[in-house]
């Protein structure tokens, strides 16, 4: 053992000697000549990876999908009697109807109402064939999340816009962006890569729910986190 160790030490000393030698030999020409280049290349590399990480990667990560039918909230809000509740209503057991079923459209759309191509397609492809529209839900949370509209809308009186933005007043549906890896909607993690949030509806990650809960709900039921217990929002 000891001989091996000694050998090893000799060798490493050998190497050390040689390493120390090199810079003294080349000192003069190296520092002056390529110092600027090293800094330049460093910055080119940095900028390239920033562009890759901040601009190209998000483009690659999300695939863009169009909604099957472009729905115009603004037109319909003038036509219905009950406001948002005509289409997005609560059932008696407190569950939320969510995205409307064809049954809520059929009363008016048995026949084509306006002149738009969009509506003609809707009536032909879905109403007449009695086929449900496969809407893409921007706010869809992962399977393990339990979200309840009734507690937020009825009990806590929170406005739809606080979480959904101005979809209710919009004239068309935006492009749906799906994360290619997780299959989740981009609205969960938000558009802004730096994590900066301008509006309360820019994203709806776990921390965004928790942030409002800490402010508005105030319940420290979890032994682990001293915030809401996991079994408030998870199932």
């Amino acid at each position, binding site marked *: 053992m000891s001989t091996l160790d000694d050998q090893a030490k000799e060798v490493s000393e050998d190497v050390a000697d040689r390493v120390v030698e090199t810079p003294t030999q080349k000192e003069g020409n190296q520092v002056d000549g390529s110092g600027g280049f090293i800094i330049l290349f460093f910055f080119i590399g940095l900028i390239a990876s920033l562009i890759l990480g901040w601009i190209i990667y998000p483009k690659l990560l999300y695939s863009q999908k169009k909604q099957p039918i472009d729905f115009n909230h603004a037109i319909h809000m003038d036509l219905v009697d009950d406001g948002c509740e005509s289409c997005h209503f*609560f059932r*008696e*057991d*407190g*569950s939320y109807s969510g995205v409307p079923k064809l049954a809520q459209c059929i009363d008016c759309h048995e026949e084509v109402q306006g002149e738009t191509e969009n509506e003609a397609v809707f009536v032909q492809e879905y109403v007449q064939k009695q086929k449900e529209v496969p809407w893409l839900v921007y706010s869809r949370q*992962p*399977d*393990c999340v*339990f979200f*309840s509209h*009734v*507690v937020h809308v*009825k*009990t806590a009186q929170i406005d739809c816009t606080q979480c959904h933005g101005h979809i209710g007043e919009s004239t068309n549906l935006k492009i749906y962006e799906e994360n290619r890896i997780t299959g989740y909607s981009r609205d969960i993690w938000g558009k802004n890569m730096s994590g900066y949030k301008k509006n309360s509806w820019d994203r709806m990650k776990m921390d965004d729910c928790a942030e409002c809960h800490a402010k*508005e*709900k*105030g*319940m*420290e*039921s*979890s*032994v*682990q*986190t001293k915030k809401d*217990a*996991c*079994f*408030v929002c*998870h*199932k």
Partner: protein
Amino acid sequence: MKQEKAKKYGMVIDLDKCTGCGSCMVACMAENNVPFREDESDKLLSIAWMRVYKLTNGKPFPDTDICYLPRPCMHCEGHHGHSPCVSVCPATATDYSEETGIVSQIYTRCFGCRYCMAACPYHVRLFNWWDPVWPDGMEKSLSPNVSVRMRGVVEKCSFCFHRYQLTMDKAHMEGRRELEEDEYQTACTQACPAGAITFGDLNNPKHTVYRMVKPDHKQGGKPKNPKAFRLLERLGTNPKVYYLTSREWVRSMDDNYLKNESK
């Protein structure tokens, strides 16, 4: 913001009523999307949140007696919510809620180290060795209220917590925050044809579970009813599942006693 008192949901199982029929196990599997295998005979690899054990007094024929013991998760409170599994989890995947007294398991957070399984003295935690495989068409009958699990995570009984969430929705719809006793009941409780399982809030003197066992909350929830016991009481896990029996030999099996030690 919330004013109501903290709950402590618990279960009382009357062993003198249990016939060992297994309805609770079946109801639980169906309710909670519990995966199963083609060959369920190896109990170390198969998963059942509720499992019925068979106990015998070991005596020959005329004196033979059998007792069936259904075993869900005990939802141990330990000391201040530090149940054995919660305190060892390195991922914060399992948690104790002071609001309901329920020990949760978040499957997406769990990375499958199985430390909790080693820590649990009741073997209620089970590991998914494979991704669940549902027979053709069965995935359509899975419940959307319970998230399905994947390979490599631990799962266990949740006291059907999703039923609590759904009844709370109904309560909010009707403008109240308090649930009636019969509104939130677990699947096994409702499935038991003998009525051996009772479920409710152990903090609420009006609830049947409270009246059945009379938990002494100053003594870590020890039952004041002499017919009631909890499994491995002396470990101090402070479980929320109580058993009732009038049979002495069954009660003497509630803990690991030495030969010459009396209860």
